[in-house]
């Protein structure tokens, strides 16, 4: 699978680019000089030990975390620009949380149509129609009128993915989407994500699911202590990790 290179070069401008990105929490250097790009249609898996800055990194893309230095561009827009209409911008960036964060007072359909109706001013009827289609796509058409509290974790996360898709984002960011799930529910969520990847969605995904990385990722980014240490195809990364830290990380994963 050599298309990682092709995707970045063929489609010209990258979907997401980090240039010299730094972030500090007080004294703590959470992100240290990140330089990387995500091409259009590319699937990036970000991995690394806990506290390495993976989640922080993807949260900078829709400015849930502000950065102190550097530049981030998303689909040609300067994320850090003070002139950015942040709400409009965020509505175009799909984001899926570890803990789903569905709105418990709204039904599944209402969760999905909230942003299209509120942010884009879409008519409720057409938003509902699309919400039902999206639910079908994530295999939950039968749960349209259920409330999040009635769903399993895996189902909730699939609804959360549908909610992100409702705004037709050019890319979706996943922040450990399966880490809060019971093991038997991980598969159904990964299934939906694989489907998205096959359909050509640009994805940046923080995850510990190395089989998912092997199967779907175009490139794996390995982070440690806020530094992006490696960026390689999954074949190369898993067979032949270059840094000693990545070797140790993979060994630790395997020994489980």
């Amino acid at each position: 699978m050599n298309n990682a290179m092709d995707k970045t070069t063929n489609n010209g401008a990258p979907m997401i680019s980090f240039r010299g990105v730094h972030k500090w929490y007080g004294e703590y250097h959470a992100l240290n000089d990140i330089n990387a790009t995500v091409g259009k249609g590319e699937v990036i898996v970000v991995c690394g030990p806990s506290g390495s800055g993976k989640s922080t990194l993807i949260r900078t893309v829709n400015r849930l975390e502000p950065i102190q230095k550097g530049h981030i561009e998303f689909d040609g827009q300067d994320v850090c620009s003070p002139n950015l209409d942040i709400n409009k911008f965020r509505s175009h960036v799909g984001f899926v949380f570890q803990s789903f964060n569905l709105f418990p007072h709204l039904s599944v359909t209402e969760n999905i149509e909230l942003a299209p109706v509120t942010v884009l001013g879409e008519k409720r009827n057409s938003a509902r129609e699309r919400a039902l289609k999206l639910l079908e796509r994530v295999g939950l058409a039968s749960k349209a009128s259920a409330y999040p509290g009635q769903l399993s974790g895996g189902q909730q996360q699939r609804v959360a993915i549908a909610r992100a898709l409702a705004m037709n984002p050019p890319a979706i960011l996943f922040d450990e989407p399966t880490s809060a799930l019971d093991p038997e529910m991980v598969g159904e969520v990964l299934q939906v994500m694989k489907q998205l990847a096959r359909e050509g969605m640009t994805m940046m995904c923080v995850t510990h699911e190395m089989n998912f990385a092997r199967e779907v990722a175009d490139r794996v980014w390995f982070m440690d202590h806020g530094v992006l240490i490696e960026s390689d195809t999954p074949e190369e990364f898993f067979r032949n990790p270059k840094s000693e830290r990545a070797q140790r990380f993979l060994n630790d994963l395997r020994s489980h």
Partner: protein
Amino acid sequence: MNDIINIIQDNWELLLVGQYPHGPIGGLAVTLFLSLVGIVLAFPLGVVLALCRLSPFRFLSWPATAIVYVVRGVPLIMFIFWTYFIVPQILGRPVAGITTMLVTLVIYQSAYLAEIVRAGMQGLPFGQTEAARAIGLSYMQTTFKVLLPQAIYNMVPAIISQFVSSIKDTALGYVISVNELTFAASQINANLLTMPFQVYILLASIYFVICALLTQLARYLERRIALRRAGKAGASAAVASAMQQANV
């Protein structure tokens, strides 16, 4: 016991509605009117105060915080005196006792409701705010479409107990001659002269029964909400359908 029954037989109209329809309405009707209308008017004010307190803008949060602190730091009866003497001065004309009491209760209750709503908002997981902002909702949209409905729903039991305390608070209207339940009871006592114990036991029982019933309702709702939060299907389905009906 016979005495109490006799008192009820002779005075139940006075206790329920005062001299109405031959005179001004009073008794339990006024007590319930004051507490119910009071809480209904205080609620939106309380929400506004809470939102101001939580606002990132100091010109909103500081005055709101000051109001809440001052109101909560003063006994209600003093507040009643303030309104009683100051409002007619401001308006330049006398004000009915019932209006004075209502205004006082609305201000007083709104400060307490503000704290309830604020606690409800702050008790929500931060992930709710993040998720709302991540799909592009503005601060106001996040507040009104995501946070406030959840906070109020979760706080329904606390709001009901505030209602209970406002029912008891209306008894203080007695000091400015508001024609409410306690006032009616004291009129009865003044007529009978010899049975204060029986009259005031009766008065206490009426307050107790109403407040106990409402407290039970609050506890019942509290259990339902706890069940729903835990995601128990039966409870949540019932609540869900209730909420759906409310939405329609």
